[in-house]
């Protein structure tokens, strides 16, 4: 398969790992921001190829994991209302809310459907004019343009029975939070390739300059990640702190301008609560007032819920790279993919689930 096989070539991967081993004169702590990258690192055992001193910690970039508990509860509440068809990407369905997940809501009679695109949800709305169709608009900057487009189209085509429950989050404010923490250990970042495909990497330049930290925007295949790691180690060894682009086959400096435009037209930046971390200023997207008719929180007049997270879950520390999943006393015992205590154990991209699936005997 072109554009895939060459990025999974074991010989190239081993050569890159060897290069890292030659360059590294001291230990370095690197963080991959994106959950998709965590998944690849675990699935291919990239950590095993690297010299011992190179430590990889997992970042907050799993959209499923950082969606706040009260929003899951709101989704379940809406899904259970009569006349509602609740649509979502598949992996949101198994995220535990306070009492159950969307799969269980479906088993109790709610009409919950997995879609691959918000435009599919819009089609369902068009075909079911007597029903209220809600799409769970979750994710980072990567999914925001498509979600914005669906809302935009709903207004343009006058599809009044379509609304979106929005829980969009932004990557740079989360990286800033990690870097500002007095306990921060991260010395270099593997930047989120999909997010930067949309947004470009201008914002990351500011972070690199302000905190003197190297950032390499990377893809999602093993060779991508190993190349990014080698670029980071080279920068760290040479005392540089620059933004470099490993994922040049997808990412440009300015990003996708058209996608950014539709995002800006439909969404505006606001404070947002992150599951396990708390509120981060200016870290999320909400629908603009002009689109209030398609805002599920307005349509269903949701009261703002406040829900206490289970104190036992250390996902806050995992998502900030301060702890590894195996450091958690519940990991693999009371907290498994079958009965997750916290969201990182749910999605395949969640750090805890990735560790559990690929590494728990290591």
């Amino acid at each position, binding site marked *: 398969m072109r554009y895939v096989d060459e990025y999974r070539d074991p010989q190239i991967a081993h050569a890159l790992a060897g290069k890292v081993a030659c360059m590294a004169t001291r230990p370095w702590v690197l963080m991959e921001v994106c959950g998709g990258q965590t998944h690849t690192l675990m699935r291919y055992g990239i950590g095993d190829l690297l010299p011992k001193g190179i430590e990889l910690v997992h970042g907050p970039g799993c959209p499923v994991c950082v969606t706040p508990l009260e929003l899951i509860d709101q989704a379940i509440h809406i899904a259970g209302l009569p006349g509602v068809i609740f649509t979502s990407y*598949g992996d949101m369905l198994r995220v535990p809310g306070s009492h159950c997940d969307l*799969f269980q809501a479906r088993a109790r009679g709610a009409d919950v459907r997995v879609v691959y695109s918000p435009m599919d949800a819009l089609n369902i709305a068009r075909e079911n004019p007597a029903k209220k169709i809600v799409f769970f608009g979750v994710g980072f900057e990567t999914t925001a343009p498509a979600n914005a487009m669906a809302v935009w189209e709903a207004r343009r085509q006058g599809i009044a029975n379509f609304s979106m429950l929005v829980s969009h989050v932004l990557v740079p404010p989360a990286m800033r*939070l990690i870097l500002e923490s007095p306990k921060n250990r991260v010395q270099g970042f593997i930047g989120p390739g999909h997010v930067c495909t949309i947004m470009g990497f201008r914002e990351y330049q500011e972070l690199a300059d302000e905190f003197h930290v190297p950032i390499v925007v990377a893809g999602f295949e093993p060779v991508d990640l190993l190349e990014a790691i080698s670029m980071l180690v080279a920068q760290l060894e040479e005392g540089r702190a620059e933004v470099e682009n490993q994922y040049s086959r997808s990412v440009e400096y300015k990003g996708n301008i058209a996608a950014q435009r539709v995002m800006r037209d439909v969404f505006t930046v606001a404070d947002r609560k992150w599951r396990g971390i708390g509120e981060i200023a200016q870290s999320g997207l909400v629908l603009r007032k002009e689109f209030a008719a398609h805002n599920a929180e307005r349509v269903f007049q949701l009261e703002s819920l406040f829900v206490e997270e289970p104190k036992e879950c250390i996902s806050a520390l995992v998502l900030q790279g301060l702890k590894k999943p195996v450091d958690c*006393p519940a990991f693999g015992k009371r907290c498994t993919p079958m009965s997750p205590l916290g969201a990182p154990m749910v999605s395949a991209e969640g750090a805890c689930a990735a560790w559990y699936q690929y590494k728990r005997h290591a």
Partner: protein
Amino acid sequence: MPEILEALIDPASFVCPTPIGVLDRIVLGHGSGGRLSANLLRDVFLPVFSNPVLDRLDDQAVLDIGGAQLAFTTDSFVVKPLFFPGGDIGSLAVHGTVNDLAMGGATPLYMSAAFIIEEGFPLETLGRVAFSMAEAANAAGVTIVTGDTKVVERGKGDGVFINTTGIGIMRPGVRLSASQARPGDRVLLSGSIGDHGTAIMASREGLEFETTIVSDSAPLHRLVADMLAASNNSVRCMRDPTRGGLSSSLNEIAEASGVSIEIEEKKILVHGEVRGACELLGLDPLYVANEGKLVAIVAPECADAVLEAMRRNVRGEEAAIIGTVQRGHAGLVTMRTAFGSSRIVDLLPGDQLPRIC
């Protein structure tokens, strides 16, 4: 900046406040062939049905009736769409039943067919399903000797569901069981994986991408016959990796035999288009259903002979030795990746979920 919660966490007080994993209702994941399905068996059915024949948990029961050794199996088919590239619910029902018998080493002979039909279902479509079923049975050399029909109200079914049973006769001296894998045994796979599941998914509504992926739905009893003839009684067990995929079959064998199994990523064939579809959908081919493949555990000294026999059969042309059975870590399946690292190949907790991005 938000408070870091570390100070609040006292590991000694670690208890699960919301045991969401304890389900009080059936969810779709119970039908996935993964961990939830296994729990359903363990928690609901085995405690009340338990007996020595059932407790072997193989794909078929082996019964001694008046001196004859019979294999007996049942299966239900709820595939959507009813017609897909490479087959339909009718041919699938025959192949699935034939294969469940064949995996026990039996020669399939007779089948039943029961139809649960939704009110309003077109007769013409039912006729096509029945015709396809008859054709598949003829080709496989099994006879449909009894059946039943039930009609449910519109909205209470999904077109048509088919339930089958199958009866076959055991070969003298052959006893295959998932509990017989031993350290040193080889793991043989009859061909590429993931074809059926991706063909179904690609033809489902709502997923509009064009592929030429065809289901591998096929009867495997003749392949099994060739393997057993060449095996000198060295085949320990066979499974057809249907729902839950290759990973589920290997986990079941490792668990039942109290061994671990290591497979090699490089040896497992996944056709290019299937890989592409899986990439696109965020699925792992190891967990995707097959309907015309088998995985066999064979004693090391006869593995090459069995492999040769497989490759001479049209259903096993792409067969390969993909791994070995090992001592220790009972129930664990691992895979040596193309990178030389090792990872766990676990049962899925529920259905594979398409990812957000």
